[in-house]
């Protein structure tokens, strides 16, 4: 079945998979290269949004065509990842904000009607 894959399908799926992988890789590089925590939280969202999205789209297209029926359950993965990312991100970011405020570090916005000062 793999041998007689139409050329356009191979190209389309490869472009999507490589594109998604490239974006996810850019995000991973960002984790290493960026300077502080608040910058680093932006990098992995590339993998969870478009990077992962392109790979899932490639999977959906490939299996829809080779199995001759509509396969869209990849979209559920995308939905769940998108819905759950903010929860983890907020937990991490607010913990860091709290710590920075307690330690009085620079460059962090203070609470206006602060209950911690």
């Amino acid at each position, binding site marked *: 079945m793999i041998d007689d894959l139409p050329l356009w399908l191979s190209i389309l799926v490869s472009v999507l998979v490589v594109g998604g992988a*490239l*974006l996810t890789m*850019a*995000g991973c*590089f*960002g984790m290493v*290269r*960026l300077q502080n925590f*608040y*910058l680093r*939280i*932006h*990098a992995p*969202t*590339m993998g*969870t*949004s*478009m*990077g992962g*999205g392109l790979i899932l789209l490639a999977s959906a297209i490939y299996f829809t065509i080779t199995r001759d029926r509509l*396969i*869209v*359950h990849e*979209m*559920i993965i995308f939905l769940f990842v*998108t*819905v759950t*990312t*903010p929860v983890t*991100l*907020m937990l991490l*970011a*607010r913990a860091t*904000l709290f710590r920075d405020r307690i330690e009085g570090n620079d460059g*962090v*916005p203070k609470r*206006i*009607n602060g209950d911690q000062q």
Partner: protein
Amino acid sequence: MKRLFPHPLLAVILLILWLILQQSAGLGHILLGGVIAILASLAASLIIPEPLIVRRPLKVLQLIVVAGLDIVRSNIAVMLILFSPRPQPTAAFIEMPLKLTNTFGLAVLACLITATPGSAWLEYDRERSTVLIHVFDLVDADEWVETIKNRYESLLMEIFQ
């Protein structure tokens, strides 16, 4: 009826997700999925007391398209910065006032802002109705806030409030 179906929309969405996961719309799957959806929506009603009402269903499609385009655009923008030899983004915190107060609207906005690589939703203050957002590469703070307000907040207010 109200007590058996506290969140009818949630139950329907769960049933659809179940059927997509099973990749079948057979009667057995619909019955089992339906029972699971109803039980799950009953459990959810304990932690989500307010009703979920979508006033303008067509606007949801518009929101998906607008957000999708935004995610693609900001992915490319952030990737270009990350692949540059010395990434020096001008990051900043923004305190944004919100008119949107609906719980579900806020949840959707948080998901969208976080899913967009250039911005992260950090802290929502219900008393002052503001949200603290960290932006990866900020050019103009006022313009950025205006864009979010016009593009998402007004749309979400039409849908949920």
